[in-house]
């Protein structure tokens, strides 16, 4: 694929994407999803539990194979090249419990050419986490913070954060959101899935609403606010009322 094509291609394109889980009664977790994500946006991926957010994210990261349809990152299928472009925070922590935070940072710096140790250490300091601590000695929330620091310390084109703030306290949540804002680079995009809409809505450009594996709405936060005269959080509660 030549250079010209890759720069012209959208950062992320999803074409008629489906994912069926055969051992779940052929349940369609993602159903004919179409999406084009440009550069320079902060996007919330929202939807009720089980609507397919994590399945979609895993397909974008090449961890699940689509049943049909395709994902393109910079015009390429998910693979080694796309992992260089995407910084991914999974829903579960995968850090090696016996390692120290400092070793984890070295490990990431070895692995990713775009990793900034300086950024990582400055975030650790702000959140009061010792680089010498072993991961198994850290609380669940602190581990999540470490993992998020590792992911945000890369200079990636696309950050995909699956539930990045659910486990951390409100003060750290504010710090993390501020970190996202100050590190914001007009050429990169952040997609984050969460249920804590009111906490993050001021930080988002756009929101994606998913329902039963399909795209229901993809619009800007201010469009929802000016058309519905309510916050995204209030609109979400209305749309997904049980």
């Amino acid at each position, binding site marked *: 694929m030549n250079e010209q094509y890759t720069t012209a291609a959208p950062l992320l394109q999803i074409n008629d994407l489906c994912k069926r889980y055969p051992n779940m009664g052929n349940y369609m977790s993602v159903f004919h999803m179409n999406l084009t994500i440009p550069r320079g946006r902060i996007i919330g991926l929202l939807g009720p539990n089980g609507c397919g957010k994590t399945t979609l994210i895993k397909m974008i990261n090449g961890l699940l194979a689509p049943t049909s349809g395709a994902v393109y990152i910079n015009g390429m299928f998910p693979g080694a090249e796309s992992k260089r472009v995407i910084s991914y925070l999974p829903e579960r922590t995968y850090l090696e419990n016996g390692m120290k935070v400092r070793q984890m940072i070295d490990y990431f710096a070895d692995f990713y050419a775009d990793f900034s140790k300086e950024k990582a250490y400055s975030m650790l300091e702000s959140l009061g986490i010792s680089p010498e601590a072993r991961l198994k000695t850290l609380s669940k929330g602190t581990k999540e913070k470490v993992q998020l620091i590792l992911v945000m310390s890369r200079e990636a084109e696309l950050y995909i954060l699956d539930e990045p703030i659910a486990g951390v306290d409100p003060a750290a949540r504010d710090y993390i959101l501020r970190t996202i804002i100050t590190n914001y680079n007009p050429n990169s995009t952040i997609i984050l899935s969460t249920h804590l809409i009111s906490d993050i809505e*001021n930080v988002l*450009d756009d929101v994606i609403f998913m329902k039963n594996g399909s795209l229901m709405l993809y619009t800007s936060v201010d469009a929802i606010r000016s058309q519905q005269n309510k916050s995204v959080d*209030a609109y979400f509660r209305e749309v997904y009322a049980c």
Partner: protein
Amino acid sequence: MAWELNSDRPIYTQILEKLQVRIVCGIYRPGEWLPSVRDLAAEANVNPNTMQRAFTELERSGLVITQRNMGRVVTQDTQMIETVKHNMAVTQVDSFFVNMRQLGFSDSEIISLINNHTSQTDNTTVSN
């Protein structure tokens, strides 16, 4: 400290109003440099694109002028700032009257309430 923003109105219009207030009341003085979009976005805890949009609107109105590659300054046209200030005051008075009429007050009752209020606050300032 994040800026206090309502949840039911577009974020960028609220930011725009707050920046206008800062200019009108002299926190950002005529001819003075404004903080960068990124710094203000971090201060307000909002998306930089949203802050940028508010700035674009301020530039369009002429209240803020972009110096190529250097940043933004507040206009030196003090008359324009006064006009914005006046318009903001009129908007406040309008919405005040709308709310008071909703409560069932007539215009003359509203005005006498205002007169009472100002004489009371005058007295308290004197006694302080």
